């Protein structure tokens, strides 16, 4: 039973890492501030969600698992708000979006 839970944890953590790598890759490969924000907010949010899920399976109590979920929700809120502020700041400064 414990081995099955451990296996799930490992799978979730690896999947989370794949999304974090995608976020970083997007940050490096995407051409302008707006597209980079897409990569950061969305890929990292899913990556963190998967890692939190993997860690919550290993939590000793419900309170610890709840704390992890709370962290994820706060990061979600902060990520969405900050990406809005950065995009809005760039827009107000007249930074043109990259066009293919």
């Amino acid at each position: 039973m414990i081995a099955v839970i451990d296996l799930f944890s490992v799978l979730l953590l690896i999947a989370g890492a794949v999304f974090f790598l995608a976020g970083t890759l997007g940050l490096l490969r995407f051409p302008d501030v707006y597209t980079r924000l897409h990569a950061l907010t969305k890929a990292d949010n899913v990556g963190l969600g998967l890692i939190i899920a993997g860690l919550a399976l290993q939590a000793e109590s419900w309170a610890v698992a709840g704390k992890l979920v709370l962290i994820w929700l706060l990061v979600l809120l902060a990520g969405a708000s900050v990406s809005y502020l950065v995009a809005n700041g760039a827009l107000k400064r007249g930074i043109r979006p990259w066009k293919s």
Partner: protein
Amino acid sequence: MRTKYLKTGMMSILVCVIVFSLIWWILTDGNIHSWWIGVPAVVLAVWVSIRLGLPVQMNGYAILKFIPFFFMRSLLGGIDVARRAYHPMLPIAPAFIEYPLRIPPGLPRVLMANIASLLPGTLSAGINQDILTVHVLDCRNDIYPELAEVEQHVARIFVMGLQASEGGQ
């Protein structure tokens, strides 16, 4: 009507108390002795959120219906952007689009803009009067129905109707 209003007000205070108590319980790892400080803290937090304009009416059922929608869409959003980042050709065609908001200003709009940023291919970049400026990663996709669906969800959560607008749908 007035009693109904009062009832929903009491409901949202009750929900507030439950949510803040849960957060306190989580933060203190369920330590029973910490409630000496926890109970006043929860009361204070509820009072502050009422003072800061807690929406009187919120539909719990709409929130429950929104959660799976949000999980699925944000997961798809992550997969979509990850696929593009890994793809050798970097398949993106970014553009700005303008979405005419039908939802009233304040908390509903802030929530709508934040949720849109986590959906596949959209990023909120500004709210100007009734226009939400959205940066889309791939303008070949039609994202208007998606934004309209989010708006509908948010409107249901705050128990409010959407005003009809010409370019909305």
